[in-house]
């Protein structure tokens, strides 16, 4: 797998950026249609493209099937998307957003409850998890431990990443305890909907320090492929771990340091994470917060952990990655050093660029932190917004309607 390592001068690989987008680009650039289509079917590039699978271990056969299934869905979704009024992704005015919840404090995580579609948010500065009901927040889990992130600006934090394993099982990544003591907590939400205390988890896991290894903390974001939960963390800065919690059904059975992203990419801090429609683990590597433009988008085999593709995004501090229903990738840029440059970005192919990709800013957002697509295709984004000297903010939940056609 060495050929896929960043250290090599040239890496040839394959990336899916979304079928629907491909169709759009055929409309935009008719001359490229044939050239774009051919490699998928008969050009040598396809052979190169297959190599990650050819070199994969037998245990990785399953994800290939999953990829095919996901792709079928993506194709169907693309057809649906094309049936919508053409708002066009280059038509930025077509992408409108509205603030749907205002009374949050440093919201840092978001998830949608299966079956109900209710939005859950880690209201991190208030040290609690809330849900949004009729446009109002209601406490779900309260009294998380709190901490302060950063030296200036400073951000009060508590719970961070959220992930539902099923309707009633919620996993919460913590940010309020010291490294090594920090917890990944699993909750069974009460049927009566009454709030519970943070300590009422049914299970919790930590990655403690040893004589040789620094403890882990700040479990920023969570993603699952049904076999494991992947957790970005920020303890040992020599490694930049993505931790992995193993799943037995919906039961978390173990938690370990798994992927040393800093060793793989030579750039700091995994933060955003998701599973691509093809089953790859996609990590938004934030980079140094005082260095502009050093964020990476990195693809890993979710089973072996092998790095497949590492893209220099040109963005400052990617903190979230998500795919829309039609398979298009989006990222949020927090832009620590200059938040006016932060926002929601679409990730697009660009064969003219050195990396083969480009990003397009769809929306300026004030310190965005997390995002999730709902079943209808609307995108919800949490943002810290105006941040006070005391580390508290006027955080918000922003909705980008499905009509934006993301």
């Amino acid at each position, binding site marked *: 797998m060495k050929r896929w390592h960043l250290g090599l001068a040239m890496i040839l690989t394959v*990336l899916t950026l979304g079928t629907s987008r491909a169709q759009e680009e055929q409309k935009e650039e008719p001359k490229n249609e044939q050239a774009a289509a051919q490699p998928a079917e008969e050009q040598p590039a396809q052979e190169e493209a297959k190599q990650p699978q050819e070199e994969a271990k037998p245990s990785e056969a399953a994800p290939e099937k999953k990829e095919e299934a996901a792709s079928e869905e993506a194709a169907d979704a693309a057809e649906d998307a094309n049936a919508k009024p053409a708002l066009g992704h280059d038509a930025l005015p077509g992408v409108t957003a509205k603030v749907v919840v205002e009374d949050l404090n440093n919201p840092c995580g978001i998830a949608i409850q299966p079956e109900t579609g209710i939005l859950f948010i880690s209201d991190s500065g208030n040290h609690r998890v809330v849900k949004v009901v009729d446009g109002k927040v209601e406490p779900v889990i309260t009294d998380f431990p709190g901490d302060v992130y950063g030296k*200036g600006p400073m951000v009060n934090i508590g719970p961070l990443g959220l992930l539902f394993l099923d309707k009633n099982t919620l996993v919460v990544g913590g940010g309020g305890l010291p490294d090594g003591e920090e917890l990944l907590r699993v909750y069974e939400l009460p049927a009566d909907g009454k709030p519970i205390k943070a300590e009422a988890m049914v299970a919790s896991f930590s990655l403690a320090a040893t004589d040789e290894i620094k403890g882990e903390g700040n479990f920023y974001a969570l993603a699952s492929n049904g076999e494991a939960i992947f957790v970005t963390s920020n303890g040992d*800065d020599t490694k930049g771990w993505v931790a992995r919690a193993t799943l037995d059904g919906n039961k978390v059975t173990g938690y370990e340091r798994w992927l040393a992203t800093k060793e793989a990419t030579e750039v700091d801090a995994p933060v955003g994470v998701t599973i691509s429609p093809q089953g790859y683990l996609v990590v938004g590597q934030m980079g140094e917060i005082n260095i502009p433009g050093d964020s990476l988008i990195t693809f890993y085999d979710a089973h072996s952990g092998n790095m497949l593709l590492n893209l220099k995004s040109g963005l400052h501090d990617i903190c979230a990655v998500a795919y829309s229903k039609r398979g298009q990738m989006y990222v949020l840029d927090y832009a620590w050093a200059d938040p006016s440059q932060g926002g929601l970005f679409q990730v697009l192919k660009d064969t003219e660029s050195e990396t*083969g990709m480009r990003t397009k800013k769809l929306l300026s957002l004030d310190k965005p932190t997390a995002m999730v697509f709902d079943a209808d295709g609307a995108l919800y984004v949490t943002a810290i917004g105006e941040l006070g000297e005391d580390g508290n903010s006027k955080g918000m939940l922003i909705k980008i309607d499905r009509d934006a056609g993301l």
Partner: protein
Amino acid sequence: MRTWRRIGSLLLVLAVGSGAVQGQEKVVEVPPGLRPLPVPGENPLTAAKVALGKQLYFDPRLSVDNSISCASCHDPKLGWSNGEATAAGVGGQRGARSAPSIINAAYHRFQFWDGRASSLEEQALGPIANPIEMALPIDEAVKKIAAIEGYARQFQEVFGEPVNEVNLAKAIASFERTVLSGDAPYDRYKAGDTDALSERAVRGMKLFFGKANCSACHSGFNFTDNAFHNLGVGMDKEDPDVGREAISGLKGDRGAFKTPSLREIARTAPYMHDGSLPTLEDVIEYYNKGGTPNPWLDEEIFQLNLTAEEKADLVIFLKEGLSSEQYPDIEPPELPQ
């Protein structure tokens, strides 16, 4: 198209990490262990330009009193620094910061300790105009160089125009870009030569990338994250140097300075942004105690609890592992008249 849809993917062939000097004249051999040399498109590297820049780099006529050249403070014989805590400019004036080595500066995301220049081209003229360094206003420097026939001819040949502020910077930056150090024992060890490092250096290397937490900041092929960190150095002074904060305006950058590369670190004593630590042993001891407490101390600075043997092993790795036999010991050229 149906097949394509079924595959459900837009396939792209992507190139990542390709060298920035493709199609350009090969001027410098990049040593093993380093990445392709980043060269800005607006200043392609040519042998003639590097030769011109080299002359300018070593030429004291770029100072107001013809006493100080770039090489006076960034001396190839002294690790491309000057062997002192701070550097003496014209009239013996001294600033508060040490002269950073320019080895592998080509790869630095920022130049100067506070990162106020984002490229070598942007950096190159700074010391010339700085009143406590070379103290020669740039317009005067341009006139002075233009009056030297050998320079005038070379600028015309290299740039197709007389010397000016922009091409003066480009020439010096081009030379600086070629000052490279790689192919160190660490690189050879990493490439598979298990005899390249001694047993103690290997132990030190493991500490470097583990318990000692060095690679939290000194990461990547050039042993720097290119970022800015508050180590507490000088923060116990009455009026500490605010470092990066003066540039970024962010309070979190107070007392933060750029992470230097550690390649050839054994040659660049004394250490830290103010040159306050004379030896590598002092540096390790400083980190081991967790720096100097202050409100902006980087979270990666904490007590390491290294044993005496571990500290010694770490120093051995730094000295033995990161010093190259191919050190760029460049001799001064003959200067044009």
